[in-house]
């Protein structure tokens, strides 16, 4: 596929661009949301799981007799028993890494499920869990990712995949890297550490599975996503035909990626339901979720190098990166595909190299978290750009501006092969500088320093790739495996006989605003009033392909799908109206819910046409069937195959957003505590469908980013125990840790490739905060010569650095 035709975007819009109040809200505001744990299925029983206390152990023996004897207990299932019915979980890595919904003979991280209980209540199920006796043979525990290559014997987590704990190793070079580095005047080097944090939405993951003897079919309610994309993979795990599994989506109380594909919980619930003959609800409690959600975020150690000319021109960017994937590898190393999508950021860097070593350790495996690994690359790149600015004595603003890809250079192909659709990075930077009063704060900072106050001004200019293509699932693999190239989104629109629009979505609500987006876009397309539009979600039985939210794709993709379906509907509206009005279709126009003959007052409203379409076949044109509906499956707007040796990954994430974050902070150097004096976030994600909800993503993402940067850490000790496995120790920011006012600005550079020019903006804030805040702290502490290269930057670490600096000075 070559670059798609550039789209013309209509300028006059009635609904797109409005801060319309959300369609989803009234039911959520009144406690009528129906999240997974709110759903009751008749005769439902409740499951709880026994979590491994060991990070790495062989399961020698399980004695569940005391648990089974407890009144109210329906079933105790061990991994060895479960595996007789249920196979391994879906895995996108190639070769796959076997993981089961209940560990079979070996546990590989603390919290892994060792056995599951079904009982009349969750209370009894937990009583029974307490009575299961397990004999473990502890195995050597691997926590340090640096040890992976030398692990041997029992310390190897997956002996079938090799003799050590290296999960995947590959070097990709893009462009004339070595040559460019040789021609550089300076090569700036920096080590950067990004520790694991995670999405931790307020609602955990759950599923209710039931098996109908009559239809011989499973129904699973779940707060999951991707069911209409790869939901059938769960039927494979359950060893049932795909048409004997129906997945019914519920709304999710937040995801941020972590509910993208909650297969373990669904497969477990279904396995238990099948084994005990009753519908089973399994909803993770917070401990289940923290220790075993399969969705911890990236955990990386970088050695970075950036080659530049002395004048600050960037030439080549390279890295050695070790990524601690934990015990399994469900999504392969797709996180590094995300990073490669915007590897060189907003800069004209000619060449790049990634030396990736992904390793297994005895920790919960990685999954998805807002950015999916690209936010980590933002941090790495921006840190080394700051380092280069320091080393070359150029201001952080100027080094960025000097290297930005210029507006007229788009579409712009970066070294990895991905193409950026459009952008105006200088405009975003200018707007942010202005909103922040950057220069004013520089002088205030200087005055404050004289009074012994430590103000820091941070800056980061980052990309937000949106709308992934599925090639990134496999292009890192040595053998691609299942090399899929589709990642569409669908919609079904039905205008009923009364003229109301019924819109069916094939992906879930997970805290974003799919109903509001769809409503605004349908209203725009069909000129139907939003109050006449009804949105529902299809299960897999009714499902058309829907890749789902994630990778900031939903708004872009659903807009494409709606435009497609609306075109068909409009065609039929025009055809019928033309027939009745005896006018040629070219003379008709659709306005305010009415098709009329241009320049006259003759016309028919949509309800009038719809009524004819439904019930008056004999009055319709001959080639018109009854009814008024259309469905459309919209494919990824622009993707190409990677080349064979992966020196070019193809186009896989082309809808490129951009942001500039400027935090201004003050540090109390005695306690290490930080306060926000100002926080500015300017985003460009193309045409904005709803400025209010976009700002919501920016602000919410920003506070999540503050969590990752300053507070949150899934910390495993030497024994592989997760020290921060609760909400008292895993520090999600409260209101008091958030900046009092995150000032949001927008620059609009429409995408030439998407409907209306929309770009994704869902991951927004979290992708810009870490480098921006790190640079602010570094800037505040400049008198101490402190470098920030590891997160989270807790007050304790700030104090440690200051103390060390003071001791150095003597």
């Amino acid at each position, binding site marked *: 596929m070559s670059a798609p035709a550039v789209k013309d975007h209509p300028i006059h819009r009635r609904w797109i661009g409005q801060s319309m109040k959300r369609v989803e809200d009234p039911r959520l505001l009144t406690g009528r949301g129906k999240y997974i744990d709110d759903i009751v299925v008749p005769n439902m029983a409740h499951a709880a799981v026994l979590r491994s206390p060991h990070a790495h152990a062989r399961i020698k023996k399980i004695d569940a007799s005391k648990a089974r004897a407890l009144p109210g207990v329906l079933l105790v299932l061990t991994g060895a028993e479960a595996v007789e019915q249920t196979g391994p979980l879906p895995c996108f890595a190639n070769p796959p890494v076997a993981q089961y919904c209940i560990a079979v003979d070996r546990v590989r991280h603390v919290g892994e499920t060792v056995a599951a209980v079904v009982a009349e209540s*969750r*209370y009894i199920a*937990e*009583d029974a869990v*307490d009575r299961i006796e397990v004999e473990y043979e502890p195995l050597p525990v691997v926590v340090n990712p640096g040890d992976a290559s030398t692990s041997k014997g029992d310390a190897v987590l997956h002996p079938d995949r090799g003799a050590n704990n290296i999960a995947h190793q590959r070097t990709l070079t893009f462009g004339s890297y070595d040559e460019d580095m040789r021609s550089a005047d300076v090569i700036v080097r920096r080590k950067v550490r990004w520790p694991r944090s995670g999405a931790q939405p307020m609602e955990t993951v759950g599923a209710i599975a039931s098996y109908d003897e009559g239809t011989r079919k499973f129904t699973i309610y779940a707060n999951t996503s991707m069911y209409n994309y790869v939901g059938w993979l769960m039927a494979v795990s359950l060893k049932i035909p795909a048409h004997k599994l129906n997945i019914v989506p519920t709304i999710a109380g937040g995801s941020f990626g972590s509910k993208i594909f909650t297969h373990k919980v669904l497969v477990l619930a279904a396995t238990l339901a099948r084994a005990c003959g009753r519908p089973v609800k399994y909803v993770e*409690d*917070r*401990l289940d979720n923290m220790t075993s959600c399969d969705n911890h975020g990236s955990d990386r150690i970088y050695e970075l190098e950036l080659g530049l000319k002395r004048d600050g021109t960037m030439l080549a960017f390279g890295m050695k990166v070790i990524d601690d994937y934990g015990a399994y590898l469900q999504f392969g190393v797709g996180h590094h595909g995300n990073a490669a999508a915007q590897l060189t950021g907003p800069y004209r860097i000619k060449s790049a190299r990634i030396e990736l070593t992904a390793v297994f350790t005895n920790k919960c495996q990685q999954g998805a978290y807002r950015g999916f690994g690209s936010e980590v690359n933002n941090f790495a790149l921006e840190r080394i750009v700051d380092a280069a600015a320091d080393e070359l004595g150029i201001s952080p603003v100027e080094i960025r501006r000097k290297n930005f890809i210029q507006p007229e250079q788009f579409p712009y192909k970066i070294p990895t092969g991905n193409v950026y659709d459009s952008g105006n990075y200088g405009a975003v930077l200018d707007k942010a500088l202005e909103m922040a009063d950057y220069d004013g704060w520089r002088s205030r900072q200087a005055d404050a320093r004289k009074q012994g106050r430590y103000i820091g001004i941070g800056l980061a200019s980052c990309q937000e790739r949106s709308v992934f293509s599925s090639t990134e699932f496999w292009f890192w693999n040595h053998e691609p495996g299942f090399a899929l190239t589709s990642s569409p989104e669908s919609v079904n629109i039905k205008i009923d006989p009364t003229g109301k629009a019924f819109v069916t979505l094939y992906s879930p609500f997970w805290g974003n605003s799919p109903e509001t987006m769809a409503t605004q876009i349908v209203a725009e397309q069909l000129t139907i009033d939003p109050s006449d539009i009804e949105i529902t979600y299809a299960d897999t039985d009714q499902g058309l392909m829907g890749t789902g939210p994630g990778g900031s794709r939903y708004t872009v993709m659903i807009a494409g799908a709606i435009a497609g379906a609306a075109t068909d509907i409009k065609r039929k509206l025009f055809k019928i109206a033309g027939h009745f009005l005896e006018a040629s279709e070219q003379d008709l126009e659709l306005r305010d819910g009415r098709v009329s003959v241009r320049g006259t007052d003759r016309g028919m409203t949509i309800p009038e046409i719809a009524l004819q379409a439904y019930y008056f076949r004999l009055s319709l044109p001959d080639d018109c069937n009854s009814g008024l509906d259309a469905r459309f499956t919209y494919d990824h707007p622009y993707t190409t195959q990677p080349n064979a040796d992966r020196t070019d990954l193809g186009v896989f994430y082309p809808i490129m957003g951009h942001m500039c974050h400027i935090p201004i902070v003050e540090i*109390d150097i*005695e*306690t*290490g*505590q930080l306060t926000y004096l100002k926080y500015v976030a300017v985003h460009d994600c193309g045409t904005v469908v709803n400025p209010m909800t976009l700002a919501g993503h920016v602000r919410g993402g920003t506070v999540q980013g503050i969590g990752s940067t300053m*507070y949150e850490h899934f*910390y495993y000790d030497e024994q592989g125990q997760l*020290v*921060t496995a*609760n909400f*008292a*120790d895993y*520090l999600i*920011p*409260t*209101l*008091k*840790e958030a900046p009092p006012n995150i000032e949001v600005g927008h620059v609009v550079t429409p995408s030439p490739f998407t409907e209306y020019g929309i770009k994704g903006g869902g991951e927004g804030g979290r992708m810009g905060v870490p480098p921006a805040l790190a640079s602010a702290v570094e800037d505040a502490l400049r008198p101490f010569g402190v470098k920030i290269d590891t997160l989270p930057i*807790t*007050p*304790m670490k700030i*104090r*440690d650095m200051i*103390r060390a600096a003071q001791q150095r000075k003597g």
Partner: protein
Amino acid sequence: MKPAPFQYVRASSIDDALAGLAGHGDDAKVLAGGQSLIALMNLRLVRPAVLVDINRLSDLAYIRQENGTLAIGALTRQSAVESSDVIARLCPLMAEAIRFVGHRPIRNRGTVGGNLAHADPTSELPAVAVALGATFVTRSQKGQRTIAADDFFVAPLSTTLASNELLTEVRIPVWPAGQGWAFMEVSPRAGDYALVGVAATLRAADGVCQSGRLVYSGVGPRPIRVAKAEQALVGCSSGEATFREVAEIAAGQVEPSSDFHATADYRRDLVRALTRRALMVALDRCQKGA
């Protein structure tokens, strides 16, 4: 995360409660606000066989002044302390400290007695109680006794209360005129337990410190009073220079341990910073009060 089963006893009088506790040893527990106990029970870290609910003992919920003493019933909710004019007047240090205890919904149920009996060394109120020389009144079937705050706290989550004994009242000398105070802390997030907290009082006149108390949360197994630092105040000029020295002494005296959230070094840093700042505020209030 559901609690293990237990036998529930709803006490309708103190005697009732004591009878409920008797004979079960450590297997019986008092349920007050439940804001610490139920969390631990949900995690199944604590599994009492018998739970004696004292929430109906409304005669244990009071704040009153009795000849020179402020008496706070053990069942007094933390939010009642927060909004009490009597406390604000007679025990401003506690009024200031109580706002650092969790969040409003937790304080609405959490009790003063429960907080003290729970004896978390990072908690605010034990430090306040020690700083103010509080005494604790307890009851068991053997009768009543009083325990000085200094003797009450033993180790994390451990006190000199017997398992069948009920804390019924906290007695605090009424605030002496002209005494300054401050409670300050650093916690990981708003509402969290303190990494380090300091309860400070100060009396000063004519530019000279006469006496002061410095008691810390988070730097030892129980509230830690640093006598050396207190002594260093006496007779010195009241002001930043002295407080800086005193803070240095305090930081040198405490022997905090390290954990995931704070190393011993960091805790010492906090002791140093908070001590000086608390004394500055205390001095200011002392001068305003005088």
